[in-house]
């Protein structure tokens, strides 16, 4: 009888501890309610010092986008770099993923092409896939370069890359197909 009581007491205590620990974790990893980019970044970096907050990284990233959009400025780039670095250190994202995200948003050239090492005749065989990848990345660049940094020149450069790349890729793809058909 005594043993049964001890077991029940242990279970009850365990449940209490478990219930109380969940809100604590949520609170520690909650998206900071900061109104400025700097304040938000400081709070977020602090959160990411906690290894359990890695799962909130995407929410932090999205919130930083929203905050930055309210005040587009070149200095926002530093905030994103810092957040991504913190995410890498935390283990929330890999180094590769972090670099991908930073380049997709803040670099005029297209990251999706940089990572493909196959020859063009092979790599460009699926036009729709290529175009979809470029379209998606161009949207991110619009957000990053234009909405967040307010850098029209760099976004125009991205648009120019997009335009030129689609022309050249179409031509290369067609010439490769034609060569294949002649065999």
């Amino acid at each position, binding site marked *: 009888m005594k043993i049964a009581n001890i077991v029940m007491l242990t279970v009850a205590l365990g449940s209490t501890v478990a219930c109380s620990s969940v809100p604590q974790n949520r609170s520690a990893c909650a998206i900071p309610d900061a109104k400025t980019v700097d304040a938000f970044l400081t709070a977020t970096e602090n959160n990411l010092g906690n290894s359990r907050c890695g799962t909130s990284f995407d929410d932090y990233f999205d919130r930083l986008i929203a905050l930055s959009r309210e005040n587009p400025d070149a200095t926002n*780039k*530093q905030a994103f*770099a810092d957040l*991504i*670095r913190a995410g890498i250190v935390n283990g929330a994202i890999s180094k590769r993923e*972090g*670099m*991908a995200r*930073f*380049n997709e948003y*803040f*670099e*005029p*050239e*297209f*990251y999706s*092409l*940089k*990572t*493909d*090492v*196959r*020859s*063009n*005749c092979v*790599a*460009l065989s699926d036009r729709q896939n*290529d175009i979809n990848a470029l379209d998606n990345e161009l949207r991110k660049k619009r957000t990053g370069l234009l909405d967040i940094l307010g850098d029209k*020149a*760099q976004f*125009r*450069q991205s648009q*120019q*890359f997009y335009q*030129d*790349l689609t*022309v*050249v*890729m*179409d*031509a*290369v793809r*067609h*010439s*490769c197909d*034609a*060569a294949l058909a002649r065999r």
Partner: protein
Amino acid sequence: MSYAIPTLKDFSLALAITALGGVTTAHAVTATGPSVNLFNAATIESLSNTSKTARALESSLEKVINQLETQTALYESAGCASSNDAGCVQLRKGVKKNYADLLDQIQAQLPEIKRNIGETRDALGKQMVSELGRKMSPGDLQRLLAGRHGKMTPSAPALGSAKAGRLSGLFEGYYNLVRRGGNSSGNSTVLASQLYIDAVHSANYLDLIGAEIDSQHTELLLELEWGELTAQMTGTVGSVKELLWGSDDMRQNILNVGLETSQPQEAFADLYVD
């Protein structure tokens, strides 16, 4: 009876390509980069031939178009549209004959232009497969367009008013512009790609145009009633004139490609991917 006037307007597409051919030839002579050789001897020769064909067409059509315009103006000012006066009938015959001459000349030169464009397409396509398709990855392609071969690449020259005057003058304007400004393989690649795509489409399209001109020519010879022919002819002549002596060319945008080199990003070196 309806005459397919738009086909002649569309014919300008093929000739615009010949104009671009002239541009790219010039560019190749002066701007072929060390690592990308899209314009070999065969390509340059076919482009040169295409340019010459365009010049020949310009010369041969100029006289007949001038005559047509004069006759049409006289026809309209004399109110011949609804008249069967002997003079008007004579004038109609003259217009008809000149219009038939115009179609004859286009018809005669169409095969050569088509052959030249086909040769340009094939020669350029072969080089593109060799230089861009098999030797390069998508990343290499992007670096090429960005002009990053380990050195800074100046922006492409502004086209400004190079496209002014006659079709033949257009070639010289582009040629001089390219000589002055560009030595970027990236720009050259975009131009070559645009030319290739247009050549592919046009080679297919010229078959259709040829068939329609054949049909139009036959109908003209058989047609006894004028109907709306004069108005349609005026439209055709206008299209050909625009082709020969000037129109907006969207390809100017391609020449204006601004491949600025990104500023050094030392602060983010750990996050950038080259």
